[in-house]
Structures are given as C-alpha cells and as structure tokens.
C-alpha cells in the first residue's frame, strides 16, 4: 500500500522544507519513499505542489489523479487548486487558513474567495478537512509565521490524517534543521498538546 501526500502552498512558505521533513520521517520508519520537488520559478511567489509517496512498491514520483490520501496546504486557495488529486472517499485535507493574496488578484480584477467559500470548494473533494490558522498562531507565539508549516504537520498527525509517528517526525526535524530544532519542536507539538 502506498500513502500519498500532496503538499502545496506559495513559494517562500517552506513547502520544500515540509516535504523533506515528511520524506525523511517516512524513511526513518522504513518505508520506500518517492516524490517530486520541483524547483525553478516556484521560489518567486508561484504555486508549488510537491508530492510524497511512501509505502511498498511505489513507482511513479507523482501521485496519480484522485489518489492523494492527504493534501497538506500552507495556503487555502492552493488547497483548492490541487483538488485534481483528491477524492471524496479517500482524501483528508489539512489547510493553513493564512491567505496570500496574489498581486494579480487586483491587477486582473479577480476575486480572492472568502474562508467560507473555500470550505465549500473543498467539501466535495474531502473525506475530512481540518482548517487551522497555523501561520498566524506561530506568528503570535514565535514572532514568525514561517513555523506554520511544521505546526501543520503536527495537526495532520493529531487529526489522524498522516500515519507517521510523532517520534520520527521529531527526529527528522532535528536532523534536517538542527539550528531551528527547538522552535520547530515547539511548533510541531503545539497542536499535539492542544489535542491531548
């Protein structure tokens, strides 16, 4: 069986970092890991979907259509943009509700959807959807919204939407970013603690 995680957000939010944390944690648990980490223009505020697949007998680096088990979105509109990979019977969503409004919204006279509208958009694709104001909470607690991604991993685990052990994610965090380990650990455990 393969577990498929789709990570998305906007360049600069730490999508790649999040994908490394999850991939490394899955490797620590002995799974075979595959995935994609597209670089290039994403760094410049573009959208950036990253796929991670772990289990046994995983081949394609990308998740086939409708086969995501978890969509972890660091930006709400980007969650909706990846619904091609979602399926009502299968997909859980964890969504950081912190919006990053594209400059094009005003330039092209488009509309950025309200939080209620986003919830309605996601519903037909989600087995379960958890919304959390992770970036804002982290900004308040640590003075920097960047830790929202790590908090979101914690939320995914505590909601039962990401079958990885707390200990392996913590090891992965420590190994990947030893300098920011304490702060990341706090962010990661924040939700776990709330839910205990």
């Amino acid at each position, binding site marked *: 069986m393969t577990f498929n995680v789709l990570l998305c957000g906007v360049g600069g939010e730490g999508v790649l970092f999040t994908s490394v944390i999850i991939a490394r944690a899955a*490797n620590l648990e002995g799974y075979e890991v595959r995935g994609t980490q597209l*670089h*290039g223009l994403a760094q410049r505020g573009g959208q950036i979907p990253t796929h991670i697949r772990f289990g046994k007998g995983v*081949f*394609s*680096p990308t998740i086939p259509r409708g086969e995501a088990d978890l969509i972890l979105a660091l930006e709400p509109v980007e969650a*909706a943009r990846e619904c091609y990979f979602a399926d009502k019977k299968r997909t859980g969503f964890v969504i950081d509700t912190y919006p990053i409004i*594209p400059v094009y919204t*005003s*330039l092209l006279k488009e509309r950025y959807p309200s939080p209620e509208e986003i919830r309605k958009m996601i519903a037909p694709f989600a087995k379960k959807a958890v919304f959390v104001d992770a970036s804002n909470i982290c900004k308040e607690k640590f003075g920097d919204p960047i830790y929202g991604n790590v908090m979101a991993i914690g939320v995914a685990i505590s909601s039962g939407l990401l079958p990885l052990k707390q200990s392996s994610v913590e090891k992965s965090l420590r190994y990947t970013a030893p300098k920011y380990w304490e702060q990341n650990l706090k962010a990661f455990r924040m939700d776990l603690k709330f839910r205990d």
Partner: protein
Amino acid sequence: MENPDILEKAGKKVVLLGNEAIVRGALEAGLGFSACYPGTPSSEVGLTFADIAKKVGFYFEWSTNEKVAFEACAGAAFCGVRALTAMKHFGLNVATDSVFPVAYVGVHGGLVINVADDPFGHSSGQSEEDTRRFARVGNIPMLEPSNTQECKDFTMIAFEMSERYEIPVFLRTTTMVSHSAGTVKLGPVRKPKIRGKFVKNFERYYCIRPILQKMHENILKKIDRIERDYARLNKAEGDPKSKKGILANGVSYQYAKELDLKNVRIGKLGLTYPISRKFIIDFIKNLNTLIVLEELEPVIEDFVRGVAKDVNPKLKIYGKDILPRVSEYSTELIRERIAPILKIKKPDFSEQERELKKLKLPTRKAVMCPGCPHRSTFYAVKKVLGENVVWAGDIGCYLLGIFKPFEMQDFILSMGASLGVTHGIRKVSDQKVVVFIGDSTFFHAGMPGLANMKYNDPKVLVVVMDNNITAMTGHQPHPGTGFSAVGEPKEPIKIEDIAKSFGIKNVRVVNAFNQKELQATVKELDSKPGVSVLVSRGMCRLLMKKMLKKQGRKFPLFQIEPGEKRNLGLLDKFACPAIMKRGNRYYINPDMCWGCSVCSQICPPGAIKPAAKGEEK
C-alpha cells in the same frame, strides 16, 4: 539547503533528490573535478557539489557558461581525473561545439555529462528539445536513469564506461527524474583522484584529416562495442509468454509499473544510445502488440519499427499515434491512452471533473520577490521612456517582467540573445529598443553581443540588471560576485569596466533602489548617440534575506500612513506582492515587506514611511 544524507555511510538507505543521487554516484566513482553553469532542472547537482567539495576534497567551480564548464571538465579528464558537468538541455546547445570534438579525441579519466531535459517546461522557456537526438549526432553513448537509485548507480556506470572506452558519456535525465525524490541505498565513497597530467600526443588531441577519418571510424567502433557490452543496462520483466509488451525509458517506465498491469511484458531501456538491437529483437520477436512509452520524440519507436520490419513484420506497434509528442506523460495519461489496447479498466472521474469545473480560483503566477531590484529598474525605465519602446528580454528572474503590469520583455529567446537580436532590429528599424540583461547572463553570453553592437554602433540603451548573483537558479556566484562556488574570496570583474574596455563612452552605474537617480540616468542616456550601458545594481533581495537571517537580523518594514487619503493608484503599476488591496485601500503586509523603500519613493511624499516599530536596518 544542504542535505546531510549525501555524505552518509555506505549501506544506509536515505532519501535523495535525483540530482543529489547523481552527486553521490560521482563521489562513489571517485570524482576529482566538476564545473557547471546552473540551469534548472540540473542546478542542484552543482549546488550540492559546492556544499561538499571542500569537505570531500575535490574541485568544484561555477563556470561562466556550459561550454566553458564542459571544456574545463574535458581538460581534467585529459589529465586522467574523473570529471562531471551537469547542465539543462539548452546548456548542451551551448556546450555542443566542444562536446562533439572531445568525443572524437576521447578522454583518459571518466567524463560524464548530465543533461537534464524539461518536457512541459517546468523551469524552461525556450523549447521542448529532446537531447537524445544529440547522442545520435555526436555518437556519444547515453544512459537514462528512471528513478533516484538509478541516478546514483548509472552515474557510476557512466564513469566506468567513459574510462573503459575513452569516450564522454551522457547521463540524460528529465525534470521528473532530476527533481524526483526517492530512497537510495548508498555504497562506499571512493577517495577522489584530484591530480593528473596532460601527456602530449601529437596524433590525439586534434581532428584534422587524415586523423579525422580514423577518429570517426574509431568512435563508431566504440559505439558498436558499447551496444554489445552494456546491454545489461536494459531489462525485460513479466511473463515471457505474454503477447503484449510495453517498451519504455526514464520516468515513463515508472508510470507503466505504477499501473500494475497483468500479462504484459515490460521492457526498459537504460542505455538509449546505442540501443541494443539484440535486446530489441529478443523483446519483440514473440509479441503481437507493442506500446512504446517515451516522452517527446519517437526515438525508440523509430528504431523499433526498423528492427520489427525484419524480425516481426506483423507486430502492431503503438507510440506517438496514441501518445503526445509534446509535454510530459503521467500515470493517468498513459492509462487513458493504452486502456483500449490492453483492455484495462479506467477509473471514473466524471463526478470529480464536474466539481473541478465549478472551481473559480484567482490566478497565481510567479512574481518578482518583494524588494526585487528588477521591479524598481523596470518601473523607472518605463516611467521615463513610456510604452512606445521595443523591450528586448533575456534569461533570468527579470523575465518575470513579461507579466502585467510591466509587460517589458517583448522577446525572450536564449542566453544573451537580447543583444544580438536588438542589433538586427535596430539596423532595419528606427524603433527605440531597450535591452534588459542580467549580470550572470552578461558573463555567460552577453559579451560577444555587446562587442558586436559597439563595433557596428546602433543607438541602443543596454540595461544590465546586476543583482550580484545568478538568482533564478538558486544563488550561484559568477565572476562579478566576488567569491567562488566554495565561498573563497575572489577579485570581482566589473561589468562597467568590461563595457568601457569595449570603448563604450556612456556607461553609468546606479543604485537600483534609488528611483530618482535611476530615472535621471535613463533620461540622460536616452539622449546619447550610439550604445549606452546602464548598470542598475542592487543585490538580490532574496539573497540579502538569507544573509540577514544568518545574522539574526530583519529588513526594516514600511507601512502606509494611517489615514492617508491621497490616491496611491501608482502602486498598481509597481505590483509588489507585499502590497495588498482591500476594496480601494492599500496596505503593506508586514510578513512580506522586505524593506526596499522603493514604494515610498514613488508615492506622494510622506504616504509610506518606515513602520514605527523601527526594526533594525
């Protein structure tokens, strides 16, 4: 981000990016020398080399372009040192002039060229070229890994092959291989051989007749032997009695495996030049149906059709008749197209499709970062010169100037082409043309174009957007930066000095974050005859952000004065992603402002000021 797993112990299983696995493979092969010019999707090969070169003890540099990088690697390989260069597909276009003759003369130390194609153009805007054709033109063997483990293993085999046959070897990847992550089992790292010697041999290192023909014959013989000796890089799986088969290369093989097809034989080509005729004969002789899966050009398909005529003329072959020659493949695309042939079930997505159609989402495209010096330069040039100008574009972050509200890149072709094409336009048209070219691109391919322009003297304003680094590919230094790939200080070469040395009289350097100075200089140079050069200098803000973070510092924040009533509509023409709009009111998102201050310079005085909090500068 440095990945500590690259240097993990033999026997461990770690997750690596395809590009990182290539680096590990090179270390396990005892690489002693590498030189690259960055180009995504291959950039992380060099970035990883740069991270570890000092620690492991081999040489690495970012060269000025792919041709120079390849030549440097060839020089090392002539001396018996194992060398690898990595480049994107268009990089190979630049390097090819030297790659073909080096294949003729051959090497002593293994020489591997990782070339990364980018079907779909995830990070490329030139063409969807298929570099497998280059292998055929130059008679250079080509290996194609299909996943991360193979990236490592095939790199080692490429070195072995290169040294055994004294021929450079291509390791061809695509974005979905270079940028795929996957579990890799590590082997032992070999101590690098970093010193060698050039041994003179008057019949070896040039290709003039009659040696030329001997060399040509020799390389053809090498290719024949490689076809025979390395057929083991191909494999056939599944029931040998099956009448249906799939033949694939690279990531297409992984997509086919993902489908978990029953009663279908799967053949995989790891060596796609030369293709083993014997392997193909064995694979197709008992089949009645064959599907060839390969992205882009029908290279394998054409070969198989030729072989099938002799050995299995009744074989029904599907390839580019059912699958596209453009863009990349995916598991679902392949399933969709082969389902009627193999009689497999397709999942029903009609309900999902209906729901997807209902989604109305705001457009999000890549943008110049907050505080980007290019935005400031674009704004100033347009403010002074207006709209009636042909804007010559080039390759770099500034190509983002194609989008609204700037729309200041009327053509973007290849590295340095802004100058050459502008010259042609100006010789046949009186239109005003402004060239935008970046610092790294200038060193890469801008100098010949500028020399030609100066010598033939049309009136043109050349704006060098100098952010002190190769930004778009992840911050690689170049000869103007002042430090090397491994962080050693170097004496920077100044672009203004180069322009002056060409005899260009009107060369100005301005601070890209100073609107007043920028606008005045554009106006001044616009009135001058001949070629003028404006170096608009301001450090890449993303690079500065990283540097400040290391020092525990932050940018100063700016804010729109509370109660500001004047019209700030100019901000729409500036399009900074940190400036947002609620109704008709603008506000600066403090999480996104990178403190460049340019918005405060273009708005009415006092409208935008440093935030009262007074973050340190």
